[in-house]
């Protein structure tokens, strides 16, 4: 406990920790608080509105024609926009892949590759455009075969997405959102609001929103603190002195892990309290769940802090502080660009998303995934910290000196 307190105190003396606190505060002000002030309290809707409330739908009669038309346009232009790792990528297929795509379209529309090409050439020469992406509105009349069910259609779209390298609008997880959107009925909107007011008792919904924002940024923030903290020994020329002490590598590293996690989690609880106060102010007469903010912060964000810190410690011990920051930043960037903003809770995702104070049911439908994910992140984080302790032990005995990934870069720079 004495060592834990000392490590916490060391953090309190470091500039990076105050930068971290500032970033935590800034995140709160620009995300959650900003949302609340701009948007105001969610009041009970009085009418269905005019298409403001949309929902993902699974109606095959909407999805199949819309997706087919989109694929046909993309095929004729041979230009497909995909997001394989969260980044936009424009795909142009070669002849072999175009033929495979043509077979998929032929199965759905009955149009052969030659028919499509002839029409495309005619239209393109008529309007005199050859390079740009051209819309070909209602150019084809085709019948979708009766025997083509939604399951086979989804399989065909899966194949199309595979040909494109993944991340396209035709991917399994994107079909409903891209091509099946439909307006919510008044009853559905009211049911959604009732869920928010009575089941979530308002604070639960907002707690998820607050956790979503911090869940994105904490993976990034913690690596800076952990990397600077762990390399402080080397920067202060303390390594040999610490290595020569009696304390076990495991105890030292795990105490540091606990101290880092504790000191980085504590401000999140403070922010949760602030969020709680704001909600009370915005919903003065509501029956709020006064534990919700703290409960969600604990079960959602503590695993985030534990996994992010553990990973950062392992990367720092294996490589160096700068390399750890670069690697974890890259992981963060790729991870947070993936998938949708709400109900995006994969079992093994480092970052989970539910960027709304509404849609309780969507979240609850994935509660098992959520619990699994948070347990997985917690265990993975602790495991990373244990591995970091093993690597620290090897360094201490002079058996391992870290992979110097960036040494050449910096040596080269210093020579220049």
């Amino acid at each position, binding site marked *: 406990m004495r060592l834990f307190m000392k490590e916490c105190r060391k953090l309190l003396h470091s500039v990076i920790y105050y930068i971290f606190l500032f970033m935590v505060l800034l995140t709160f002000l620009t995300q959650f608080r900003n949302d609340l002030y701009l948007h105001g309290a969610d009041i009970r809707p009085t009418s269905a509105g005019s298409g403001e409330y949309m929902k993902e739908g699974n109606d095959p009669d909407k999805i199949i024609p819309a997706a087919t038309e989109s694929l046909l346009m993309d095929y004729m232009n041979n230009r497909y926009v995909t997001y394989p790792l969260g980044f936009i990528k424009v795909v142009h297929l070669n002849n072999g892949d175009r033929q495979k795509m043509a077979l998929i379209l032929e199965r759905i529309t009955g149009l052969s590759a030659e028919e499509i090409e002839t029409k495309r050439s005619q239209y393109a020469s008529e309007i005199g455009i050859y390079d740009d992406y051209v819309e070909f509105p209602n150019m084809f009349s085709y019948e979708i075969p009766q025997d083509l069910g939604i399951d086979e259609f989804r399989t065909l779209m899966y194949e199309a997405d595979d040909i494109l390298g993944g991340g396209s609008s035709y991917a399994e997880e994107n079909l409903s959102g891209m091509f099946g959107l439909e307006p919510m009925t008044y009853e559905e909107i009211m049911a959604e609001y009732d869920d928010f007011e009575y089941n979530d008792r308002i604070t639960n919904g907002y707690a998820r929103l607050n956790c979503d924002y911090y869940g994105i940024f904490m993976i990034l923030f913690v690596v800076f603190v952990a990397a600077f903290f762990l390399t*402080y020994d080397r920067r202060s020329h*303390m390594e*040999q002195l610490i290595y020569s*002490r009696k304390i076990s590598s495991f105890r030292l590293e795990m105490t540091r892990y606990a101290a880092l996690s504790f000191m980085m989690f504590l401000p999140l609880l403070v922010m949760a309290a602030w969020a709680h106060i704001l909600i009370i102010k915005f919903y003065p007469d509501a029956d709020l769940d006064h534990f919700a903010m703290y409960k969600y912060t604990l079960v959602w964000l503590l695993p985030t802090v534990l996994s992010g810190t553990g990973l950062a410690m392992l990367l720092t011990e294996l490589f160096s502080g700068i390399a750890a920051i670069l690697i974890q930043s890259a992981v963060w960037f790729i991870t947070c660009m993936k998938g949708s903003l709400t109900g995006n809770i994969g079992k093994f995702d480092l970052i989970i998303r539910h960027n709304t104070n509404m849609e309780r049911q969507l979240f609850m439908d994935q509660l098992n995934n959520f619990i699994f994910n948070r347990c997985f992140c917690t265990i993975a984080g602790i495991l990373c910290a244990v591995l970091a302790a093993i690597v620290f032990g090897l360094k201490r005995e002079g058996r391992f000196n870290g992979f110097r990934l960036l040494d050449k870069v910096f040596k080269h720079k210093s020579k220049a």
Partner: protein
Amino acid sequence: MENKIEIKHVDKYYGRKQVLYDIDLTIESGMFGLLGRNGAGKTTLMKLLAALHKKKSGEITVCGVPIEHEKKIREMTGYLPQDFSIYPSMTVDESLEYLGILSGMKKEDIRKRRDMLITRVNLNQQRRKKIKELSGGMKRRLGIAQALLHDPKILIVDEPTAGLDPEERIRFRNLLTEVAENRIVILSTHIVGDIEASCENLAVMNEGRILWSGKVADLISQAEGKVYSVNADARFINQLRGQYTVTETILQGQYVHARIVSDGYPDIVGAVSESPNLEDAYIWCLKSHGYSVMGGEEE
């Protein structure tokens, strides 16, 4: 339990490069000097003894405990590394408390030992000061205090006086001699004067090998009859340096008074045999093992 360190046939590699060759050494209670050039392998040997490196082969026992029992070894050993420093934002008191915790000491023991050691190393006025505010000499004294904090049987100090002014160096050597009672103190240095002034026993290292070990007086006596002084015309000083190993030159007008280490009587008129000191003996030791010394004649 025997109060000595035994090193038998120890080899050490950094990757594929061998840096220690068949080290055989026994170090007993008191001040022991490890003398050698920069890069001779002294720090590597120190780190092996502090359980900070692994040997490739051979045996090391510290007070009967095999070096593989790292926890026990670290408990028995105090280490002052060459580039000693502590977190700059900590105070003297805080730093000792922190290192005491890392050494597994109880709170009360830390307080007692810290107060006693701070007084002993004369840092009472500085105990609330931050490390970054201490002078080089104060830091080294704090280094000794931290190394002695857990009352170790063995104290390993690596190049402790480098960069200190003469007064601080003398104060530091005296401090080491004081603490050497009832414990083994290993002083690694390339400064001959430090060993001459404080050690009874020493080992001479070069290129990863022990060239000589034993009592300081015995090494000096081995250089008897190998040291001469000459007075020569200052114009011939470079010629003199080319032919002999010159350890000292004092310019006196148009003449130069030189001290020479030579196997036989030098071919210079008026050369007088002198009593060797440790520096002469060290140079002779290197020469007699075939190492080139200061541009003198090669063996």
